[in-house]
């Protein structure tokens, strides 16, 4: 594993997927997720271009009228939305159809279908199409031959909702705000909301979440979320409680919080581990403290004496330290000549691609080329400080802050650990990264539960 390079930018949020503010609703436009996601594609209207001939689409795609004869099966006509339901990052999808006028026969179907379904049929009759019909209350799953009894018939003035629950992967319908229970299970693919009619003068209007729904989808979403959180909290941890104390102790020692570690180890009865790791921690901490207090010369000479391999093998760390020294000179008001002279002597080489390349090649333990810091960019930011009477007010003034010293110290700490063949990240950090990386993949794979939890809900 190569060393993590601590970001040079201001601290990033801990959680990969930013949690939506806790007071904002779980469902927006019929899409339910806890993450602050912006969906570029989502169903918001029926498509005038993706419908059968007998249908007319009006009111910005929210009202659909049937103007065919509606007598025979061949007169059936369906319509899809412009965009499909997002295939990942969501836990629930919900929309509602109001039957404005059921028309002559009341043959109306509401459901989901994929892109390939022919629209000259009623929803549910074709492969990839699933629907609940108003004239008989039957469910049709990819066939028009036999429907299954499901709910009541529906018609004029009824509001029919359709929810794809990706937590359990079920689809259920609602009628006038009440759930009718599971209709379909294990749906796959990219699906669109669909509606179809075979009923003269039939007319429906759609609600894709821009108006309040008849069904309390928000409440339902919270129930789903509580269910998942309960399942998580129900997971039994290994009986041995020392997992927790050790995670804490290793974190404290990894980061060199030596006095906290000593006090904690004593009270938690883990002094043995503490004693074993203590010397190594204190030696690392001595170097880091010098960086944190801005005494870079002392930090470098410490490193040379105690951990010579770090400066030799870690170009990034050397660069960070030498640059920090430059920053400290600027901030402390060293003479301009001295500062510029130091920069020419020590930093200019990092603009030289040949030098960097040869430094890389000369040592296998160097980080891979793609993980090198953008030396030239950083130098540009650092040199900008020189142009300001008060460097802290420069656009790159954050470089003069204590937080920058902390970044350098963290990198030095990791580099020392790496040079000793120890884990460069604390156990706690690895737990967090593992969890976040898994959540990311779960989301991309369309796992519904992952869209309803974030580590922030627990932390």
């Amino acid at each position, binding site marked *: 594993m*190569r060393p*993590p*390079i601590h970001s040079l930018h201001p*601290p*990033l*949020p*801990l959680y*990969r*997927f930013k949690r939506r503010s806790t007071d904002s609703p779980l469902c927006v436009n019929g899409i339910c997720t806890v993450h602050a*996601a912006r*969906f*570029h*594609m989502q169903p918001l209207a029926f498509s005038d271009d993706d419908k059968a001939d007998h249908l007319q689409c009006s009111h910005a795609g929210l009202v659909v009228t049937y103007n065919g004869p509606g007598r025979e099966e061949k007169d059936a006509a369906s319509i899809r939305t412009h965009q499909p339901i997002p*295939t*990942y*990052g969501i836990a629930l999808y919900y929309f509602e159809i109001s039957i404005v006028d059921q028309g002559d026969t009341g043959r109306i179907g509401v459901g989901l279908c994929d892109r390939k379904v022919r629209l000259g049929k009623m929803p549910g009759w074709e492969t990839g199409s699933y629907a609940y019909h108003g004239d008989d209350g039957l469910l049709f799953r990819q066939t028009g031959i036999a429907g299954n009894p499901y709910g009541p018939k529906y018609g004029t003035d009824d509001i029919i909702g359709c929810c794809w629950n990706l937590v359990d992967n079920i689809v259920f319908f609602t009628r006038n705000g009440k759930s009718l229970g599971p209709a379909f299970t*294990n749906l*796959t*693919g*990219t699906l669109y909301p669909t509606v179809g009619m075979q009923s003269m003068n039939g007319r429906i209007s759609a609600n894709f979440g821009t108006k309040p729904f008849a069904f309390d989808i928000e409440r339902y979403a919270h129930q789903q979320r509580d269910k998942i959180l309960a399942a998580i*909290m129900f997971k039994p*941890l290994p009986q041995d409680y*020392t*997992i*927790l104390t050790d*995670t*804490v102790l*290793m*974190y*404290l020692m990894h*980061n060199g*919080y030596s*006095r*906290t570690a000593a*006090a*904690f180890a*004593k*009270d938690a009865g883990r002094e043995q*581990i503490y004693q074993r790791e203590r010397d190594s921690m204190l030696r690392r901490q001595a170097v880091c403290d010098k960086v944190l207090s801005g005494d870079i010369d002392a930090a470098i000479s410490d490193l040379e004496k105690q951990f010579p391999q770090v400066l030799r093998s870690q170009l990034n760390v050397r660069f960070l330290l030498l640059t920090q020294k430059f920053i400290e000179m600027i901030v402390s008001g060293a003479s301009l000549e001295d500062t510029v002279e130091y920069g020419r002597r020590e930093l200019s080489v990092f603009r030289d691609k040949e030098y960097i390349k040869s430094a890389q090649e000369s040592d296998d333990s160097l980080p891979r080329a793609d993980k090198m810091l953008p030396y030239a960019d950083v130098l540009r930011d650092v040199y900008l400080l020189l142009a300001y009477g008060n460097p802290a007010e420069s656009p790159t003034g954050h470089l003069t802050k204590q937080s920058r010293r*902390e970044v350098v110290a963290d990198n030095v700490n990791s580099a020392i650990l790496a040079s000793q*063949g120890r884990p460069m*990240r*604390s*156990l*706690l*950090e690895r*737990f*967090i*990264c*593992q969890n976040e990386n*898994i959540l990311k*993949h*779960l989301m*991309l*794979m*369309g*796992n519904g539960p992952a869209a309803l939890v974030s*580590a922030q809900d*627990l*932390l």
Partner: protein
Amino acid sequence: MQPISFSLITTIQPPPRMSNEEKKTVFTEDEWEAQLADMPVNKSEMNKLIMNYLVIEGYKEAAEKFQQECGTPPGIDLPSISDRMATRVAIQRGDVQSAIERANDLNPLILDENPQLFFHLQQQKLIELIRNGDIEAALAFAEKELAPRGEENPQFLTELERTMALLAFEDKSKCPVADLLEPAQRQKTASELNAAILTSQCQEKEPKLPSLLKMLLWTQEQLKEKAQFPEMDIEKAILRSSKPSS
């Protein structure tokens, strides 16, 4: 190393939603490690998590030192922590009465609504009197405060009997109930009061760190259904990192 924001993710083509029959995605160890290495973690957030653990578990000294060393604020109403920690410290040094008084100052209902806790505090008081060799006071206290409660509740009676057995031995270390004199007994009583105060303040009794581990167990289980990836064994990970290194 900007984190992938959602708007960015939506521009890349995600794998299609998979059916159960489809093959699992496989992540090689190198690939996975590289993804983890690119994942920035905010240290101040981790510090908060650690502080939360120290505060809720009542590691007073460590929490104080931690605040000094990394500047992370304790994150919970400060007076309530110091009160809670003070009750813990009082019990740990044998001063049960002042712990009871402090708890009553915080909220008289804490003891009123927890007869068991109150009994345990009184029992601890008796233990301290016996420890100090104040036999006369111990007997008077047992008769006045503990015996009536023992009559109400058989479990209390058993505990009272165990405690009184301490009086039967000149050399307390030879006594079969010597564990009552161990620091762990004080710790146990202190923890019980600690949890009751937290409950009365409608604060979490549980630190957040265990929840994180539980979530990791859960996410790993979810992903296992769809992919092969390097799993983290929570117990082994601990063993690995606590191995002495050369």
